[in-house]
């Protein structure tokens, strides 16, 4: 599919049109309470859209796996009925690292058993991704090889200064892009986009990882009993903040809610976190991962080893840096942990 | 055989807090009439000592669940007064708007849930549901609207969280304010429907009067709820900083709450006091409501307090809409809160809680640590007046028999909309034959 160019103005007009014709459009904008931060939220006006944002407080996973969703409706008499979100929607402004996280989730939610709740929403979404224009304070996407993205989106926008290069990757995307006033991207435009990519692949790197992301899994094989887990977890609140803000965390809890008739109700799933006390607790009162340090280690193994083994070796940390900001005692930074292990194991080698 | 009346209502129901009513009479001769407040005392003035100026609002809000917004706002005003913090016009306006929401919420709750059952001759709002479902649903709706309004601005209906010394931690968006305005505009007919329902049973309100000094705030530009000077129907005026010379609090053996008196042996505060002092400033719709019930300035029938509350609901809605318009015209601006203490000293503030004038004073050191405080709650100020009303009304109605006397006394106390957990806590009538 061809590569187009949009002037800044025609981009705005295009978004205007999208907002006026589609029911559900979400886009990156200033956080409603804290105006120095950004969030994905329903986009009412094109003027609110901020494609120059650094990072959003929550990743866009909330549109694919909402914090709370109904899985089935039940009725004491009539049994169970599947509940499904079937509305079509558009998300504007997903950064490459978040896109890659969604690509990973797609694989995980289809693997073993096809999760129709996640996948229905995923299939109903049109994603307009955009390349990073402003580096956030903790981003390390370059280290994780997630600074640019090649698939998953329907349209990718790249700000090249005098306009946007837009490339549709799907038919859905092409149809949508056709509505914009575009011109064919010139060689210079394509080169400018390449330059943005090259720059991002190098410079979105506030916390450089001292090895290839694909090597982390092997690194962890030797680190299971390393003292770093105990040391760091000493100040862990077990608050699950790192889980909640992470674009690649998808563990959930399930609970039933009754209606007032006490005969019908909903079975819901809500975000959960493997760092939380009680995550592995079973009746009567046995907890399998009771130690904070074990839970702390579990998360970093999940990102670096367990999930990668399910998705062809890709590391399940996309370097968005959200957990770094979310963690009060400042222990969540995956790079710091992996680098520390690297140092120690290479020290052992020497 | 002598005819004995012995009323002993322990823990009066449908009031906020615990209060008792005691009447002993033999052959129409009244031997004892007593209004008691046995609520467990809670010692707020003692508990705030040593706390930071930032926490005072959080603590004293817990004096009362029903008027927590008034408590929070007056506490903050007093704190700001003490340590020299200024606030913006926007903050002042949003605080007033928040305060209006509580008036509406509390008045609807009081008239609709607590007083209406008396007028309909039932024991609670529950049987009213079958008798007058539409009326109840309208009351519930008005109550919900008021609560959602409080929540929008205060972050929570009870014990608001957004207000702090210097400003708000969260502001409503212009969109939300527009929606609120629309909701309030649509509420007016519902309010009128409630007025009509109450009007249909208004003949159940006893015709009793007793010359009373009514005390409230008065403010230049508003029918006073949020601010002003202290005034009384006896023509006295006093600055808020001298409130202690108005309230003259004393400890009564009948009560765990303190009582108050000014020029007479007791005075009354509340909606009727505000109405009597500031009638002219009421919005027209409020005056119309009052007219429907024949309520006029200078009324000394305590049972009419509930009607004054209804009238005030009209005023609140109309003036809230005006305030919203002003806020929208100016546009909502994010402000940086400068809430650090500028000086040490004592601060005083008054506000009209739904049930009457409320005073808070605090003293802070230069770090903003509270050295002490004094609070005077509306219901405290009414306790003495309730007792005086009792003393006058019981001989007048003693012939009507125990049940009627009991019923009228309960209604009398309820009409004051007492908040006994505020004053400490509430009510119970006792009778013997």
């Amino acid at each position, binding site marked *: 599919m061809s590569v187009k160019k949009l002037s800044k103005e025609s981009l705005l007009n295009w978004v205007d049109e999208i907002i006026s014709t589609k029911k559900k459009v979400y886009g990156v904008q200033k956080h409603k309470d804290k105006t120095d931060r950004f969030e994905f939220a329903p986009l009412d006006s094109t003027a609110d859209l901020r494609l120059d944002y650094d990072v959003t407080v929550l990743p866009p996973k909330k549109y694919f796996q909402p914090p709370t969703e109904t899985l089935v409706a*039940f009725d004491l008499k009539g049994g*169970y009925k599947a509940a499904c979100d*079937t509305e079509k929607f558009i998300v504007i402004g997903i950064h490459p690292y978040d896109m890659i996280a969604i690509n990973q989730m797609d694989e995980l939610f289809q693997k073993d058993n096809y999760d129709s709740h996640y996948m229905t929403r995923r299939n109903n979404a049109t994603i307009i991704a955009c390349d990073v224009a402003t580096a956030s304070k903790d981003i390390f996407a370059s280290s994780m090889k997630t600074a640019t993205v090649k698939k998953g989106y329907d349209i990718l926008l790249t700000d090249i200064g005098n306009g946007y290069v837009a490339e549709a990757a799907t038919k859905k995307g092409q149809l949508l892009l056709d509505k914009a006033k575009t011109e064919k991207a010139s060689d210079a435009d394509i080169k400018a986009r390449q330059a943005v990519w090259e720059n991002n692949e190098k410079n979105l790197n506030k916390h450089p990882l001292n090895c290839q992301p694909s090597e982390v899994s092997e690194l962890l094989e030797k680190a299971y009993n390393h003292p770093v887990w105990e040391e760091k977890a000493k100040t862990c609140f077990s608050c699950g903040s790192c889980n909640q803000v992470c674009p690649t965390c998808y563990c959930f809890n399930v609970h*039933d809610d009754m209606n007032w008739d006490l005969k019908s109700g909903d079975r819901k799933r809500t975000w959960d976190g493997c760092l939380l006390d009680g995550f*592995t607790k079973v009746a009567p009162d046995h907890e399998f991962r009771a130690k904070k340090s074990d839970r702390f280690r579990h998360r970093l193994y999940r990102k670096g080893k367990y999930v990668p*083994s399910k998705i062809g070796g890709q590391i399940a940390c996309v370097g968005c840096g959200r957990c770094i900001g979310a963690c009060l005692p400042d222990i969540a930074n995956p790079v710091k942990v992996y680098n520390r292990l690297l140092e120690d194991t290479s020290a052992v080698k020497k | 055989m002598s005819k004995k009346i012995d009323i002993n209502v322990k823990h009066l129901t449908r009031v906020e807090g615990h209060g008792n009513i005691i009447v002993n009479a033999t052959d129409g001769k009244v031997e004892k009439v007593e209004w008691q407040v046995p609520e467990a005392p809670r010692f707020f003035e003692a508990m705030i000592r040593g706390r930071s100026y930032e926490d005072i609002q959080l603590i004293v809000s817990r004096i009362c669940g029903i008027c927590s917004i008034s408590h929070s706002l007056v506490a903050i005003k007093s704190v700001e007064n003490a340590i020299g913090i200024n606030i913006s016009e926007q903050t002042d306006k949003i605080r007033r708007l928040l305060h209006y929401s509580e008036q509406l919420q509390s008045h609807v709750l009081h008239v609709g849930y607590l007083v209406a059952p008396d007028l309909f001759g039932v024991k609670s709002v529950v049987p009213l549901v079958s008798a007058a479902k539409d009326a109840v649903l309208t009351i519930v709706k008005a109550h919900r609207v008021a609560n959602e309004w409080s929540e929008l601005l205060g972050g929570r209906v009870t014990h608001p969280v957004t207000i702090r010394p210097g400003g708000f931690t969260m502001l409503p968006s212009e969109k939300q304010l527009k929606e609120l305005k629309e909701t309030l505009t649509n509420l007016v007919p519902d309010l009128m429907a409630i007025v009509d329902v109450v009007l249909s049973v208004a003949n159940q309100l006893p015709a009793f009067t007793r010359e009373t000094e009514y005390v409230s705030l008065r403010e230049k530009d508003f029918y006073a709820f949020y601010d002003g000077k202290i005034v009384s129907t006896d023509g006295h005026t006093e600055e808020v900083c001298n409130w202690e010379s108005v309230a003259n609090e004393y400890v009564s053996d009948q009560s765990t709450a303190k009582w108050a008196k000014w020029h007479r042996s007791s005075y009354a505060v509340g909606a009727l006091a505000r109405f009597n002092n500031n009638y002219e400033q009421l919005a027209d719709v409020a005056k119309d409501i009052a007219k429907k019930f024949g309520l006029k300035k200078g009324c000394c029938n305590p049972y009419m307090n509930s009607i004054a509350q209804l009238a005030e609901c009209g005023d609140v809605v109309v003036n809230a809409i005006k305030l919203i318009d002003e806020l929208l015209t100016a546009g909502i601006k994010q402000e940086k809160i400068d809430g650090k203490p500028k000086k040490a000293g004592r601060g005083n503030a008054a506000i009209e809680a739904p049930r009457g004038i409320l005073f808070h004073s605090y003293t802070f050191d230069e770090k903003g640590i509270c050295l002490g405080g004094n609070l005077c709650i509306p219901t405290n100020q009414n306790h003495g007046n309730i007792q005086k009303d009792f003393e006058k009304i019981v001989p007048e109605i003693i012939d009507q028999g125990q049940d009627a006397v009991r019923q009228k006394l309960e209604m009398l106390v309820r009409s004051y909309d007492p908040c006994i957990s505020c004053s400490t806590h509430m009510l119970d009538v006792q009778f013997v034959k």
Partner: protein
Amino acid sequence: MCECCGQDKDIYLPQLATVNKARMMNGTELYLNLSMDAEPLDYKPGQFVEVSIPGFGEAPISISSSPTQKGYFELVVRKIGNVTSMIHKLKIGDKIGIRGPFGNGCYPIEEAKGKNLVFICGGIGLVPQRSFINYVLDNRSDYGNITVLLGTKCHTQRFFHSELRQWSQRSDIRLLETVDEKDDCWQGNVGVVTTLIPKIESELGSAFTFICGPPVMYKFVIMALAEENVSRDRIFVNLERKMKCGVGKCGHCQINNFYVCVDGPVFRCSELAVAPEAI
């Protein structure tokens, strides 16, 4: 097929089953015999189902019957919390929601052919093992000697009495039992289940051993087997973890790299070498 997404199966949607039989087996265990209302349950020994009680939630429960028995399946449920308490209230004819069968790690039906089999069960751990034991009994000629070691806390907590009696009377299966607590009414062995292991020393050499019981049991049994030089790739453990979905998504049952629900619940012990959290 789902109306909204067009998928043929919603993995979270329970299917209705009917209770054919329900009876208490002792103070805490309920026996249930169920049939699916629509498609019969097509399962393998070692798999489990999610039993659903509207308003209460779901509980993963092992299938205790052998797939050789057609037209119904059996569960044994211990009353322990919200869902299991409600399961205990079920009566004959009641409808109940079932998801599953789940679990890819099942008993090694094929590989175990021709081998001697040893089942080591602690208490309710007999329940899932029973599925394979009965499967083997129904395909008796395919397998070698069968030995069942069963430890129960106290003799009043034993269940499947008549079935156990039958086994002990059969010549083609050997049952050894023990109870933890000494009691006048119990004439058999006393002591934890590991005390039975030396008694079957001769069986262990080339046998496939299957362990299922309370979490604390595994470590000690495996240690005891190690003393008898039983190789870890012939030991199978049936593990239990907290579960919320049963289909490899919710993350609660994860043991290092494994999800008990999709990779287990039956694991070969040698494969768990990379999963220190397992035992």
